[in-house]
Each structure stands twice: as C-alpha cells, then as structure tokens.
C-alpha cells in the first residue's frame, strides 16, 4: 500500500507541469461552476445580496418559504403552462423537420443546387436571436410584409397582431425556431445518410423499390440510431427549448406586455424577479424548481439512451 502511494505521488510529481494545467482548469471550474451550484441553497435561506457569497452560508434558513410563495403566486399556473407548452411544441416541430429536410436534400441530384441549398440553410444558425427578433419585428408587425401579403391575398380582413396577440406567440416562437435551426440540425442527419452504403439502394432498385419505398425502408431505418441520439439530447434540454435551447431568448426578446400571457416562462420570470426586482433568494428557489426537473430529465434521457442507443451522455 505504501509503495503504491509513493509511486502515485511520484507519478504526480513527474507530471507536475501537466497537472498544473489541469488544476488551473479545475480551480476555474470550482469558482465559476461549483460555487454557483452550492449557491442554490440560498433558495432555502433568507439571503441578502449585500452579504456576498459568504452570506449564502451564513444567512438564516427559511425552509420552503419561497417555494410555497411561488406555487401560490397567481402567475404560477401560466408560467408552468407556457414553459411546458413551448417546450413540447418545439419537440413536435423542431425535431422532425430537420429529418424531413435532410431526406429531401438527399433526394436532390443536382449537386450544385444541393450545395447552395445546404450552405444557405445553415446561415441563420449563426445569426443571433437579437437580429432574428429584429427581422421578425419587421416582417410580422402590423404594417409588415406578412400582414400586407395576407391582406392583399384577402386571407385576413385586417392586420394580424402576430407580435402582440397572446394567441399567436407560441406559433411565432416555434416558426422562428424552425426557421433558424432547421438547416443546422440537418447536417447531422445528412451525415448519417451519407454513411449508408450504396449497395442497399442498388439492391432495392433491382428489386423494383420506388423512391418513396427506398426512403422509408432503407434511409430511415439506417439513420434510426442518429435520430434516437438527437431526440435524447433534445429531451435532456426539454425546458430550455429542446434542440436549440431558444426558450429564454425568444421569450425575452419577442415577449412584451401585450403577449405576456403566453410568452412569460419560468426562466424570464427568474430574471425578472431576481435581477430586476432584486429578490435573489426567491428567484433562486423558482429557478431551482426548473433545474430539478431538468436534472431528472437528463438522467431519464441518459438512462433511455443507454438502453436504446447503447451509449449515454455520461
């Protein structure tokens, strides 16, 4: 035992330069990631910001006071509903559409056009939500292009309040999420499709399979494992907004006092009560509820992933 410990220590000393790099990283993580995790206990405490980080540990315990306060808040119901609704809608639309688009792109035989289509479809992924929201304000405002078009074609009588009507926010958010991220997530599915051996298709062609049949019986089954992996990643970030995690940015940038009834989510509420109103302990407690649900989802996804795809996230 002693000899082993000595070699362990000797080895450590031998690699001290490398260990120094590692420790620089680990200390950084302790400060910027681990300490905030411990900071979560302030959700159970009567915390005052002026006491700084130390105050997290020294302030009075108040138990579940803030949790009870949030659950009985009049906004509770709508915050939970909006968070869940936006997340689920994004899974329903933002997840399958890249797969369909990938199948479609794969069927294009004009290589130049295919390349142009792909290149352009990734572009919005790299543009920030601030700019996308600005563009959305241009297009969907009362006098914007979309409303002009709808009225010219006599689809609607008057302008539609896409940005102000609470009934339109979910649709708008999901549409913009798909618009921005569809091309990007297509990459991963297209790469999987490219990996499928040509032999399958040739054999199917000889057997007289139609193109639709080839897609349905060869392409889709062959990329099944990729689909499962991406779906699991999406589930792990369900309440962040799935694939692209866009819930917060969308609600913050596109939400306003007029559509608040459907655009307020738990995350924006945390920012509002925490950073704007300065109710740190309460906001932490609210955030913690979502974090706990997310952690459970990550573990469940990981478990399912290990069962279905053979490998998990960790």
């Amino acid at each position: 035992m002693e000899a082993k410990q000595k070699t362990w220590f000797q080895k450590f000393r031998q690699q001290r330069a490398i260990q120094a790099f590692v420790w620089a990283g680990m200390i950084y993580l302790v400060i910027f990631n681990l300490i905030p995790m411990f900071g979560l206990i302030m959700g159970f405490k009567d915390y005052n910001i002026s006491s700084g980080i130390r105050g997290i540990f020294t302030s009075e315990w108040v138990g579940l006071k803030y949790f009870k306060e949030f659950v009985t808040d009049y906004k509770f119901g709508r915050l939970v509903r909006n968070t869940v609704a936006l997340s689920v809608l994004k899974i329903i639309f933002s997840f399958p559409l890249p797969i369909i688009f990938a199948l479609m792109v794969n069927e294009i035989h004009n290589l130049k056009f295919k390349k142009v289509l792909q290149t352009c479809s990734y572009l919005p992924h790299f543009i920030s939500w601030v700019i996308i929201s600005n563009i959305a304000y241009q297009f969907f405002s009362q006098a914007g292009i979309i409303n002009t078009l709808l009225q010219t074609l006599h689809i609607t009588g008057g302008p539609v309040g896409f940005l102000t009507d609470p009934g339109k926010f979910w649709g708008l958010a999901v549409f913009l999420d798909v618009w921005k991220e569809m091309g990007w997530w297509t990459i991963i599915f297209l790469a999987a499709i490219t990996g499928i051996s040509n032999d399958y298709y040739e054999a199917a062609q000889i057997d007289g399979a139609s193109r639709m049949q080839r897609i349905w019986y060869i392409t889709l089954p062959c990329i099944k494992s990729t689909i499962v992996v991406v779906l699991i990643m999406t589930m792990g970030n369900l309440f962040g907004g799935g694939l692209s995690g866009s819930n917060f940015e969308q609600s913050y940038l596109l939400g306003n006092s007029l559509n608040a009834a459907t655009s307020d989510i738990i995350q924006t509420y945390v920012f509002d009560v925490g950073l704007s109103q300065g109710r740190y302990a309460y906001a932490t407690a609210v955030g913690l509820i979502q974090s706990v649900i997310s952690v459970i989802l990550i573990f469940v996804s990981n478990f399912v992933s290990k069962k279905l795809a053979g490998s998990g996230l960790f």
Partner: protein
Amino acid sequence: MKAKLISGKRRRSREDWIMDSVIYVLAVIILFMTLYPFYFVFMLSFNEGMDSSLGGIYWFPRKFTLVNYGKFFNDLKWLRALLVTFLRTLVGTALGVAFTTLVAYALSFKDLVGRKAYMTFVIICMYFSGGIIPYYTLLRTLHLLDSFAVYVIPGMLSLFYITIGRTFFEGIPASLRESAKIDGAGELTVFARIIVPISKPFMATLALFTGVGHWNNWYDSTFFIKTKTLRTLPYLMMEVINQNQAPSDLNAASHMGTNTTTLSVQLAAMVISVLPIIFVYPFLQKYFVTGMMVGAVKE
C-alpha cells in the same frame, strides 16, 4: 459506384417526375424564405428612413441613400459599441481558445493521475449549473459586474470543447511528445512548438465558434453591465426592440433634421453586425461539420 447508379438510372418514372418537382419547388421556397429576410434588411438599410416607414418596399430601395450608415458611423454610441464588441470578441476568443486548448490537452494524457476524477468533474459542470441568480451573486462577489472582464473571463473554459479537444489530442501519438522531451524541452515548449501547430483544425473550430458566440452575445451586456460606455452592439440592437414594446412604434421615432429613423439606423447596425459572420462563414463551414460530428459521436 455512385456514378454507375446515377447513369444506370433508367427513364424517369412518373413517380420520379412528381417527386422531383415537389422537392425542387419546396427547396426553392425554403431557399427563398431563408434568404429573403436577410436581403430585405440589407436592401432596406440603403433606403431613406422616413420613406421606409411608409412601407411598400420589397425588392429595391425606393430612395437610395447611405445616410443610415453615415448616422451609424457618426454616432459615438454605436461606434463605441462596435469597438467594445470587437474587443471582447478578440480578447475573449484568444483567452478562451488558449485556456480551453491547454486544459483539454492536459486532460488527454493517458497516464494522468486522477484523470477519471477530473473528467467526472468536467462532465458534472457541463450538465449541471446553479442557475443565473447564484451565478450573478458570484460575479458580484468577484467584482466582475459592470466591467469589461465580465465579457471575457467567465466564458473562458468551454466544457463541450474540452471533451472534443481531449478526443482530438488523444489521437496525437505520444512518441511525438517524448522525442521532444528527450531533447530537453519542457511541457509548455512541447505544447507551443509541437502540439499547437498540428492542432490547427481543432483550434480553428474552437476559435470560430467562440468568436461567433462573443460577437452575437447580448446577454451579459444586458444583465451584468450598467455603464453605458461598455455596451455591446447586440445589446444596443436588443434595446431598440425592448424600448419599442409595441412594434409599430419602431417606425415612429424619426430623427430631427435627417431622413433617418431609429429603425433605419438599426437596419444599418444589423447589416454591420451580420457582415463579419458572412465573412467568416466559408471558414466556419469548412470546420463545423467535423466539429459537430465529433460532438455527436461522443454524445
């Protein structure tokens, strides 16, 4: 093989014909829907602001002008924001790439004492966080709030790229390092002279993604900065939306004496903010598929 398949494709059946038509039509619609909004903003930024607010412009500027850009470049507020954004992107990317690469490289050593524990810790930090409020408290305690450092220090270590980088560095043969060490080089020299030159694909990917992230970030300027002179370009663009809660107001605020409006200058700012991304886009494209694939396989 592939060529044979394509040339071997017999007469196009009716099904082929219908499918191709549907696919190409859809593809053109998607292409148009993706590109037109960008074109629209670009085109409208060259139109006189007051005239734009009347609407009805879809394809070409009605009253062509460069005054929106003139206004942008003559306004200290926008110029300063542009400079801050540029600086944070530059400094943030340099620091982020250096630190992340170094840690990822160190963690790639197979005989590293405590390697498993380190990696477990990294993974825990990657998936779990304390949330925004404890994080804010931390930044406050560290006196990072309301300083330029808040842009570049907290995001220095990208955990996702540590896992990718580690896999990348594991692929480098150990003999390469050892030969240099026999010649008496220290670990840092080995890293700088041997590892960095052959890690260009990884570092380029990391730099591009970190850089775009910094350039686009509106979040920390919004929540962690109060000093007006430290605002970033994305923040200012965000502010315009937030101030005009009722979107139709966007057009109303005209500037006295000029033909620009808040909106028309905003459009110029948007174009200026998107241009660098379009510029690095070809490079991004070269690397991102590999970058993303490695991550996907890992996960």
